[in-house]
């Protein structure tokens, strides 16, 4: 006699927070929109590369892929330290940071939870880039 196996499935109820879902969807839409804009900006010869990330996704496009980690750490540090400085002087949330180095410069922004860093040559027009990216 062959015994039939009985598979018992227990369904775990999933609680969906509608507000949270809509925020995530909104974030994804903004992320996609920003990614498109960044891809367009990236074509400029003065742009070295960019990083965009939010809580769920990240895109990196850099001239020197072997330095991704360095750029990512730097990008994160710029936004964290800038927010620290802004908090010290009670200036609220940071909207953009321009950091100019001897060799190149970086424009970092936080747009609706999407953290963006654009690395560019010193001659690049950051105001124009900011204009293109800003919603």
């Amino acid at each position, binding site marked *: 006699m062959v015994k039939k196996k009985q598979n018992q499935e227990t369904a775990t109820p999933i609680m969906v927070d509608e507000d949270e879902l809509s925020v995530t969807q909104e974030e994804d839409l903004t992320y996609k929109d920003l990614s498109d804009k960044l891809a367009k900006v990236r074509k400029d010869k003065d742009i070295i590369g960019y990083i965009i990330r939010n809580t769920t996704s990240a895109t990196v496009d850099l001239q020197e892929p072997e330095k991704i980690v360095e750029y990512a750490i730097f990008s994160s540090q710029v936004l964290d330290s800038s927010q620290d400085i802004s908090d010290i002087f009670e200036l609220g949330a940071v909207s953009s*940071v*321009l950091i100019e180095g001897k060799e190149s410069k970086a424009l970092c922004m936080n747009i609706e939870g999407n953290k963006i860093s654009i690395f560019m040559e010193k001659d690049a027009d950051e105001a124009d880039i900011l204009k293109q990216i800003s919603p």
Partner: protein
Amino acid sequence: MSNEVYAFALKSTLEEIKNACPDVASNFIFKDGKVIAKDKDTEEETAIKTITAFDALTERADTIGDVEKITIRSAEGKVDIANINDFYLTTVSSKEADEKYVNTLTRILIPIVIKVAEKIQPASTENETITIGQTELEEENEVEATKETDDATEGTVDQTADEVEDNENNQSEEETATAEPEEEIEEPEPEIEEEPLLPEPPATQLIVENLSGLLVPSDTVRVDQEVIKQWNELYEDTKLKEVEVEALNGKTTRCKFKQIKKSKDSGKGIIKMPEKIQLTLETQQGELVTVKPIIE
């Protein structure tokens, strides 16, 4: 000593910047992680916290090279941290602040004050050296006089034990000892002669604006009168006729200068330049150039 000179000069400048721009909420200057000067409304702790955050950022900045400037735009205002001659100037301003005006003031005033303070500091150190040298000479001359009259070392109370022994040992060593003050006399003299030397011309960054018209001489630029005023204060007895202008690409030219006529353009940190000079420098309206007076 050097920090005191800088601190005094820079503190006054920071206060003046705040007076001129009420929208500047806080400003301070730091170097090597230490606060050099701050305005009276900025707390030491606030400045130190900012320096800590800034240091954390610069440690990771290898990808872009040494940090020259950071501009943080926030919901309620802006923070600027700019490297000026190895000093970092931090300016916190409200959203309403006239960005161009604040930048012009800080870019002109702070470098000039730093340069002036640099000039004052070595001069005061030189003076101190001379005073010490003279005191030593006086003491040693007294010692020699005592030796001549008494021919003994008992009177040389101020001398060290070694010097007394040397004097007793032999005449040749005494000669060497007497030769030393002569050398020391010779040393300070050239330093005294150098005192009238004028300070190095300060380089000021100005924004290029077009200068055109039928009667405009093509070999003359028009410089912000605030800058000319600073130069005149620095070189009171020297008549300044020409300036050296350097573009960002490194090209330089020497030309005559006059002050900007229109009062509305005063204090904006601009240099009006005929097309011919712009072509020579390969620069154009809106770009930055460095200007310094030629001292002859």
